[in-house]
């Protein structure tokens, strides 16, 4: 899928791999489970490492995977991919803010899955800086979506100075 990162189309160096698949000698995105069981092996590779956090209704509480489970692994991670399994599932917005505000993760946070035009701007405000987009998406559309609301009332993870604070 095409990838927009930091407002530009970029080539995606990462490959998402299955839990059983052998590790290629290139940047990979692994599952949380694989990260937890093979952290040492993964860290020892001389390649950027990413993880995907699932947000679909799994687990006992049906609340998806917990981004705070990454706390110990952040130093070895270059990328956290947040899954948006359907348009209406907005768990990833909070996961991104926890990564940026609380865990101070500075690497790439990528939105993958059902990510729509109308969500990009809010995602950006929550600290997501990379987006998997459909084949038809143009940079002009992306910029238009970001520019539809020029101001924000509340602080978030971006540098928009909130209205509530600047009058």
């Amino acid at each position, binding site marked *: 899928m095409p990838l927009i990162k930091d407002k530009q189309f970029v080539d995606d160096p990462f490959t998402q791999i299955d839990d059983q698949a052998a590790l290629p000698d290139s940047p990979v995105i692994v599952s949380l489970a694989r990260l937890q069981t093979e952290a040492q092996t993964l860290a020892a590779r001389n390649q950027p490492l990413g993880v995907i956090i699932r947000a679909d209704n799994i687990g006992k509480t049906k*609340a998806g995977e917990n981004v705070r489970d990454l706390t110990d692994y952040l130093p070895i991670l270059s990328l956290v991919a947040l899954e948006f399994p359907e348009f209406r599932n*907005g768990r990833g*917005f909070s996961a991104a803010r926890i990564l940026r505000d609380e865990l101070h993760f500075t690497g790439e946070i990528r939105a993958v899955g059902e990510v729509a035009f109308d969500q990009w701007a809010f995602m950006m405000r929550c600290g997501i800086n990379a987006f998997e987009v459909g084949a038809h998406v143009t940079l002009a559309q992306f910029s238009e979506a970001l520019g*539809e*609301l020029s101001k*924000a009332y*509340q*602080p978030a993870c971006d540098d928009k100075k909130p209205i509530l*604070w600047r009058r």
Partner: protein
Amino acid sequence: MYRYDEFDQQLVNERVAQFSGQVARRIKGELSEDAFKPLRLMNGLYLQLHAYMLRVAIPYGTLSARQMRKLAHIARTYDKGYGHFTTRQNIQYNWPKLAEIPDILNELAEVEMHAIQTSGNCIRNITADQYAGVIEGEVEDPRITAEIMRQWSSFHPEFSYLPRKFKIAVTAHKNDRAAIRFHDIGLVAVKRDIGEKNYEIGYEVHVGGGLGRTPFIAKKIRDFVPKAQLLAYLEAIMRVYNMLGRRDNLFKARIKILVHEIGEDEMRRLVEAEFAHIDAAKILAVPKQELDRIGAYFAPPNYESLPAESDILDKARSTDKAFDHWVQTNIVDHKIKGYAIVNISLKPIGGVPGDANAEQMDAIADIASQYSLDEIRVTHEQNLVLPYVKKHDLKNVYDMLAAQNLATPNLGLISDSIACPGLDYCELANARSIPLAQEISQRFADLDRQYDIGELKVKISGCINACGHHHVGHIGILGVDKKGTEFYQLSLGGAGDETASIGQITGPAFTGDEIVDAVEKLVTSYIDLRQPGERFLDTYRRVGLTPFKEQLYAPD
């Protein structure tokens, strides 16, 4: 009241432009209904049984006369000449055309109004006590907090795709007129002693209340959140909910289900942990100058120094019995000497609860301009309020209201019922609600009889989603569908105020032909059972369900 500044206005204008583009794409067929749905829902546009419905936000229920005139104009120009005030202090138009929605939104933007976040799984219009600022005994005007929360929650990047809709209400009075215990978050502004006769204002926080198919009374998870930390605390609750709230089942997605499933203590623990993280960043404390700026909009007006009583009023009451009744029923004491709070009943006998036509809205705007410092309030019980009327003007106000059939003296009485739109409009409904409200008010039209019955809150929902608040009716009526026939289930003893309780179902449901008789039997039982001074609810709480049930199901 609050006035938009350049920032507020710009954002609303941008949003109108954005949604106008989306509507245009929908009309041209570039957007399917499926793709359009989440977008229109963010902008208050529903697809109902017969047509689109547009829900316009009235933040914390405060309207200016100019805004009311605009609402009248929209009713006249784009709808069938009327609008419907809702239980969340909004107004709904039931017959707008899709192609004209951008025009309506532009007209609304001219008077600092919009339909943003009146639907969808986001933080909805913030509601407040309709007597804010004018009732004796308030800690402060709760609309200051409501306005801050309005701004904070508008276009919130993190909380616009929640598991389900999210409703917040605030009051600053011990008597709860905003049903805060039946909201996702309910706030009560309270004072805390900080020594040397000083106090600080903060909030008691209630979480997880709601009606719908599984009603719950909110749990108090904090006795006091200092003012400066309120937004951080709210974000903590929202984040816990957004992360853990269920998305696998639409009917279990509200925060009340989360609180119920994990328990009050665990909810409190999770919120406090999240709060510790968020508060540490210190980015959510609203600067004092901004608090003061917003607070200034809600500063008390320059009240005139008036005598406590008015000879003109007393004389009019003694000569005009109908006026006297209205004063007795619809007027509430104002905190300032010589002033009165006027309730305008939108429940004329045989009328549609909450409806007002364009002429009535214009008349109310005129009265507000002339007699109530330009201000009008909307109540969650689907009535309106004029908050600043001088006692000696009451007769004039009454005459103007009466000329528009707006002076029904029934506030809090059996004919002042809440009803959802029901099967007459709503796609979800199982049964009609409005005709039932009309029949009940006709059955009990006699005013002496209504006065004898006293306070009795009847609330009617046309389906299990409970938009008519039947769970908190002293008498609640729920429409159910049994094999294609409309039936009505009764519940007793609900209360939406500070004594919050959820009504108990009486037993088998009644047909549409039987239900009004059944209500009458309950009323008769109450009159037989009551002790001096007891309201229906008091009697019910003393004697319980059984005696009512015996009468209700006794063979004729």
